[in-house]
C-alpha cells in the first residue's frame, strides 16, 4: 500500500474541506445579521396583524415560569391537547400595556400542530385578532383558516370559552367553522380558549 499517496490524497481533501469551511464561515458572517433582521421583521409583521393597535411588543421575564406553573390547570380545562408557548405585552405609543399577545399550540389539527398567535385586549378581554404561525392542514380545506373569511371573524369577539358552530351565524361566543375542516376549526378554537384562560386566570400583570 502506498502510504505516501494516501497521505497526499488526504491532505488535498483536507485542503478542499478547509477552504470550503472558511468560505461558509465568511458567508455566514455576512448573512447572519440580515437573516436575524428578516426573522424579526416577519415576527413583528405577524404581531401587528394580530394586534393592529399596538406599537411595540415586549417580553416579560416571568412568563416562562407562569407558563410552566399553569400547564396542568390548562390541560384540565378540556380544551384538548393545547399548550401556551409564549406571552408578550402589547404596548401603545406611550409605553402603556394595552393588551396581550399569546402564542398557543393545539396538537389536534388534521395535519399535526396548529400554532397561533392571539391578541387579547387588557380592559375588555376581547380578541383583537388571530394569526397563524404553524399550519400544516390540507390545502383547499384546513389551509383556508388563513383566508379572510375565517380570520376576519375574530376581532371584537369575547367569551371565556368559545365554541364552534358549523352552520348559521356565529354569535359573540361562537366561532364559525371552516366548511369541510371542522377539525382544524376545533383545534384553532381550543388554542384560542387556552390563550383566553391563560390571560384571565394565570397571568397577573404587576404594573
Amino acid at each position, binding site marked *: 500500500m502506498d502510504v505516501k499517496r494516501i497521505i497526499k490524497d488526504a491532505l488535498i481533501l483536507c485542503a478542499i474541506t478547509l477552504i470550503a469551511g472558511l468560505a461558509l464561515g465568511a458567508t*455566514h458572517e455576512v448573512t447572519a445579521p440580515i437573516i436575524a433582521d428578516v426573522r424579526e421583521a416577519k415576527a413583528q409583521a405577524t404581531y401587528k396583524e394580530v394586534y393592529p393597535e399596538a406599537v411595540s411588543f415586549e417580553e416579560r421575564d416571568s412568563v416562562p415560569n407562569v407558563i410552566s406553573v399553569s400547564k396542568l390547570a390548562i390541560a384540565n380545562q378540556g380544551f384538548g391537547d393545547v399548550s401556551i408557548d409564549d406571552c408578550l405585552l402589547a404596548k401603545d405609543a406611550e409605553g402603556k400595556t394595552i393588551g396581550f399577545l399569546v402564542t398557543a399550540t393545539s396538537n389536534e389539527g*388534521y395535519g*399535526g400542530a396548529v400554532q397561533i398567535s392571539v391578541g387579547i385586549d387588557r380592559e375588555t378581554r376581547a380578541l383583537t385578532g388571530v394569526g397563524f404561525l404553524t399550519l400544516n392542514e*390540507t390545502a383547499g380545506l384546513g389551509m383556508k383558516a388563513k383566508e379572510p373569511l375565517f380570520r376576519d371573524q375574530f376581532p371584537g369577539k369575547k367569551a371565556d370559552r368559545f365554541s364552534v358552530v358549523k352552520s348559521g351565524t356565529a354569535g359573540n361566543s361562537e366561532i364559525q367553522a371552516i366548511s369541510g375542516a371542522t377539525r382544524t376549526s376545533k383545534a384553532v378554537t381550543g388554542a384560542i380558549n387556552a390563550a383566553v384562560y391563560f390571560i384571565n386566570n394565570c397571568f397577573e400583570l404587576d404594573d
Partner: protein
Amino acid sequence: MLAKLLIIAVSSCLVSNVVLSQFLGICSFVGVSTDVKTSAGMGGAVVFVITLASAVASLIYNYVLTPLNITYLKTIVFIVVIAALVQIVEMFMHKCMLSLYNALGVYLPLITTNCAVLGVALTNAQNSFGFVESVVNGFATALGYCIAIILLAGIREHMEGNDVPHSWQGMPIVLITAALMSISFFGFSGIM
C-alpha cells in the same frame, strides 16, 4: 414523553410518509421496487442506515455544532458523515457479520445518495429533536419507507400479468400506483 415519542413515530411513519407525502427517496422507491424480495432488502438496509445516521447526526448536531454555534455547517457535515458512515458500516459488516452483509450489504453503497437519509437528519435538526427523539423519528421514517416500497413492490408483482395500455407501461403505471397509494395514506391524517 412517551406519548410525544409515539406521536412522532406515527406521524413520520404513516401520516407524513417519507416517500408518499414528503417525496424523499422517490428514485429508489420507483427504481428498486420491481420485486418484493429486493424491496425488503433495500428497506432493511434503509432502516439500518437511517436509524444509525440519525443517531450519529443528532449527537454531532446537539453536542458539537450547537455548542460551537456553527449549525450553518450542518448540511455539509451531515452528508460527509453519512457517506463515511455507510462506508464504515459496509466494511465492518463485510468483516464481522457476513450473513447480514450478504442480506443487506449490497444495498449499502446505493444509500449514500438516497435523499431520505440526509432529509431525516435535516428534519431532526430543524425540529430541534433530542437524541432519543431523533432516533425514534429516524427509525419510524425508515419504517415508513420500508412499508411503502414493499407495498408498491407487491402491487407491481401483481400487475405484471395485467394488460396495461402501451403508453402507460413501465414508469407511468408505477407512478399512478404511487398516486393511489398516496391518496390512501391521506386517510392516516385522521388518526392523529
